[in-house]
C-alpha cells in the first residue's frame, strides 16, 4: 500500500503541473487588467500602460509562465502585485481560519448526517424518514448565504448569543474560537450534511436488505450493532466517496461563507485576488487547492481498504 501511495503522490505532479498551466493560460486570456485597477479611475491611459510595463505584464506569455514555474519549482509562489507581500505569506495568514472552518464543518456534518441517514434507513417510510429527507432537501437546496444571514439574524442580532462576523484563533481559547466559528460552520455544513445524509440513507437501505443483515438479526445481534457495526461499515465506501467529492463543494462554499461572516480565510483571499486580477495570488491559491484536492482523493482511495478488505492496491 505504501508503494501505491507513493505512486499516487508522484502521479499528482503532472496533474498539478497541468492545473498550473491551465490556470496561467486562463488568466492570460481572461479580460481585465490589474494595472488599470492600481492606477485608479482618474488615471490616464499612459499611466496605466507604464504601470503594466513596471509589473512586467507586457512580456510574452511563455517568458512569464516559464519564470513563474521556475520560481514555483524553487518553492517561491511569487509576490502579490497589490500588497507586495509574498504569496506564501498571504496563504499562511489565511490557512488557519479556512482549515478551522473546514474541520469544524466536517465534524458537525458527519456527526449529524451519518446518524440521520442511518436512522432514516432504519425507519424507512415512517415520519422520521420523511422528516430527515425533508431536512436534507431543505439543506441541499438553500443557498449557503441565505442560511448564513438567517443564522446571523437570529443568533447574533435577535438573541445576542454569538458575533455576526470575524474569526478568533484557537490559540486564544476554545470557547472564543467556537463562538466565532459555529454559525459559519453550521451554514456551510448544512448542504454537506444533506448530501451525506441522503447517500447514507440510500446505501444503508441497500445494505439492510442484504442476507447477512437478516442472519445477524436471526442470531440476535442488537439493533445498534446491526446498524452501526455490520451495516454501516459495509455502506462506508460510497459514503467516504461522497465525503471526498463533497470536499470540493466545501471549498466552493467556504468562499461564500467567509464573505458573509467576514472570516479572513483562503476563500476571501481568492475572491479578492480574482476581482483585482492579482495573478500571482490566484495562481498560488489555485495551485494549493488543487494539491489539497488531489491529496483528499488519495486519502479517500486509501480509506477504501480500511472499510473493505477486499480492495487491494
Amino acid at each position, binding site marked *: 500500500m505504501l508503494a501505491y501511495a507513493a505512486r499516487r503522490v508522484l502521479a499528482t505532479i503532472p496533474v498539478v503541473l497541468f492545473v498550473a498551466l491551465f490556470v496561467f493560460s486562463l488568466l492570460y486570456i481572461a*479580460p*481585465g*487588467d*490589474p494595472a*488599470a*485597477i*492600481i*492606477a*485608479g*479611475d*482618474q*488615471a*490616464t*491611459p*499612459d*499611466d*496605466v*500602460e*507604464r*504601470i503594466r*510595463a*513596471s509589473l512586467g505584464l507586457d512580456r510574452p506569455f511563455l517568458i512569464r509562465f516559464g519564470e513563474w514555474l521556475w520560481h514555483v519549482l524553487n518553492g517561491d509562489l511569487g509576490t*502579490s502585485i*497589490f*500588497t*507586495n*507581500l509574498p504569496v506564501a505569506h*498571504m496563504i*499562511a*495568514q*489565511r490557512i*488557519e*481560519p479556512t482549515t478551522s472552518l473546514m474541520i469544524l464543518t466536517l465534524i458537525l456534518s458527519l456527526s449529524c448526517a451519518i446518524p440521520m441517514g442511518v436512522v432514516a434507513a432504519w425507519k424507512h417510510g415512517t415520519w422520521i424518514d420523511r422528516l430527515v429527507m425533508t431536512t436534507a432537501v431543505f439543506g441541499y437546496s438553500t443557498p449557503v448565504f441565505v442560511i448564513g*444571514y438567517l443564522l*446571523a*439574524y437570529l443568533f*447574533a*442580532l435577535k438573541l445576542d448569543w454569538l*458575533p*455576526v*462576523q*470575524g*474569526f*478568533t*484563533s484557537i*490559540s*486564544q481559547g476554545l470557547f*472564543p474560537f467556537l463562538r*466565532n466559528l459555529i454559525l459559519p460552520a453550521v451554514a456551510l455544513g448544512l448542504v454537506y450534511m444533506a448530501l451525506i445524509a441522503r447517500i447514507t440513507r440510500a446505501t444503508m437501505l441497500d445494505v439492510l436488505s442484504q442476507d447477512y443483515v437478516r442472519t445477524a438479526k436471526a442470531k440476535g445481534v442488537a439493533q445498534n450493532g446491526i446498524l452501526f457495526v455490520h451495516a454501516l461499515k459495509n455502506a462506508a465506501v460510497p459514503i467516504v466517496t461522497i465525503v471526498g467529492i463533497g470536499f470540493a463543494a466545501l471549498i466552493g462554499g467556504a468562499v461564500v461563507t467567509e*464573505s*458573509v*461572516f*467576514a472570516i*479572513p480565510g483562503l476563500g*476571501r*483571499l481568492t475572491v*479578492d485576488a480574482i*476581482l*483585482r*486580477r492579482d495573478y500571482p495570488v490566484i495562481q498560488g491559491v489555485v495551485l494549493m487547492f488543487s494539491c489539497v484536492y488531489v491529496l483528499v482523493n488519495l486519502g479517500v482511495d486509501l480509506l477504501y481498504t480500511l472499510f473493505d478488505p477486499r480492495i487491494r492496491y
Partner: protein
Amino acid sequence: MSATAALAAPRLARAADSKILRFVPQANLANLDPIWTTQYVVRNASLLMWDTLYGVNDKLEPQPQMVEGHEVSPDFKTWTFKLRPGLKFHDNEPVLAKDVVASINRWMPRDAPMGLPIKKRIDALEALDDRTFRFRLNQPYSKLLFALGKSSSPCLFIMPERMALTDPFKQITEYIGSGPMRFKRDEWIPGSKAVFERFDGYIPRDEKASWLAGGKRMHFDRIEWQILPDAATASAALQNNEVDWVETPSSDLIPLLRKSPGVAVDIADPLGNIGSFRINHLQPPFNDVRARRAVQIALSQEDYMRAVAGDDETLWKTLPGFFTPDTPLYTEVGGEPLKGKRDYALAKKLLAEAGYKNEPIVLLVATDVAITKAEGDVTADLLKRIGMNVQYMALDWGTVGQRRAKKEPPAEGGWNIFHTWHAGADCVNPAPYTALDASGDTAWFGWPKSDLVQAKIAEWYAAPDFAAEKTAIDGLNKAAMDDVVYIPTGFFKFYQAWRTSLSGIVKAPFPVFWDVTKA
C-alpha cells in the same frame, strides 16, 4: 499563524475600549502607496499615516499644514516655503526639506491634472536648508497651494526621501509616515484588517481641525480597519456593536439602520458624487456631436438617480452642469439640454442626421459595482427608446478598466459608452477635474477634443479674481455642454453610519478621524 493570532483578540474586551476605534472602510486596503495607486481607500488610509504641506478646509481653501508659511515673488514664479519645526517621521527622524522635494518629485508625474502642469513649469525645485524649499517656475501657476493641499487623489503626502525616490510607477516597500497614526504592518492582513496606532511624535497644529487643515488630534490609541466586503454583514456588525463606524453602508439598509438603537446615520460627503455617462468621441456615431446631443436631450437624470440612489430624494438631485452643487463655482449656464421634458423624437432626428444606421453601440457595464450596474441598465433602456442597437457588455470593473483604454473601433475590442462617477471634491474647479479635460488624445477615456473647452480652462487658470473665475467657469460649463464632453447623470450622495457612542463625526469627502471620540 502569528498574524492570524494577532487578528484574534478578545472581542468583548475590545468593544468596551474607548481608545480603540473599529472602522469599516469602503473597500479593501490592498496596499498603502498613495502615489502608486490612486484608489480612494488608499488615500483615506494615507491621510492617517502621512501629513501634507497644505490641507483644504471645509470651504475648500488650502491652509498651511506641515509648512509654517510661504513667500511668493511678485511675478508668482518663485515660491519659498518653510516647514514647521519639530516635524518627525514615524522612525523619529526629522522631516527635512530634501524629503519634501523628493516627495513632490514623486507625486508630480502621477497627478495628471495638477502635478504634471506644475512639473512642466518648474525650472528648479530645491531644498535651501533643512526647513526651507523653493519652487522656481518659468510661468505662474496660480493654483499651487490648492495643488499642494488638495484632497483628491493622488494627494501630495510627505515621505522620507529614501522612500520618495522610488519610481512613481513602482510600489514603495516600507511604510514610514509623517502623520498622526503609524501603520502596524505586522498586524496587516490584506482583505481583512489594517491597524494604525497613535504616533506620539506627531505635533498637531494649534488651529481647530477642519477637513485636512488644522490640528489633527487623535483620541484613539488604535484605529482598526475591519474589511467587511458584504454590506449586510457590515450593517449587522454595526447593529451588534462589533464595529463603531461604517464608511459606506448600503443605501438599501439605511432604513434598517435608522431604526436600530445605538446607531446614527447621516450624509457622508457633502460634496457627493457626479454620475458620468462617458462617450467615446473617436468612434462613430459619437464622433459626431449631433449623436452625442441626441443622447443628451433624451437622457433623464431622474431615471438615473432613482436607479442609483433610490427614492430617498435627500440623497440626490438632477444636475444641469458639470460642477459640484453648493460649491462656489457651481453654475448651470448652458445646462438647458439636461432640463425639461426629454425629447425622443428630436433625438431620433439628430441620430439620423449624424448618419446612424443601427450599428451596434457597445455599452460597457461593470455589473459588480452597484452604481455602474444601475446606470448601465438605465442607459440600455434609453438607447433602445431612441432607436439605437445596444450591445450590453456585462463585465466586472477590472475588465471595464482595461477595455475603456482601447481606442480601436467597438467591433475590434473598443467601446462606445461606459459609466463611472466622479467624486464631487474632484469637480469643484477645473484643476483636479480630469474628466472635463477635452484635449483629445491626452484627455481622459473617451478622448473628447474641444478647443473652446480647453480655452475656457486656460481662462480660469489665468483668472485674476473670483469674478473672472466665475465668468470662465460659466463659459466652460456651456462649452462642455455644447460639445457633450460627457453627460452628467445627476448628483448623489452616500450615507455613513456609526455607533452613537462616537462623537465628532463630520461630513467630508473622506473619513475624518481626528477629533472623533468614543464614550
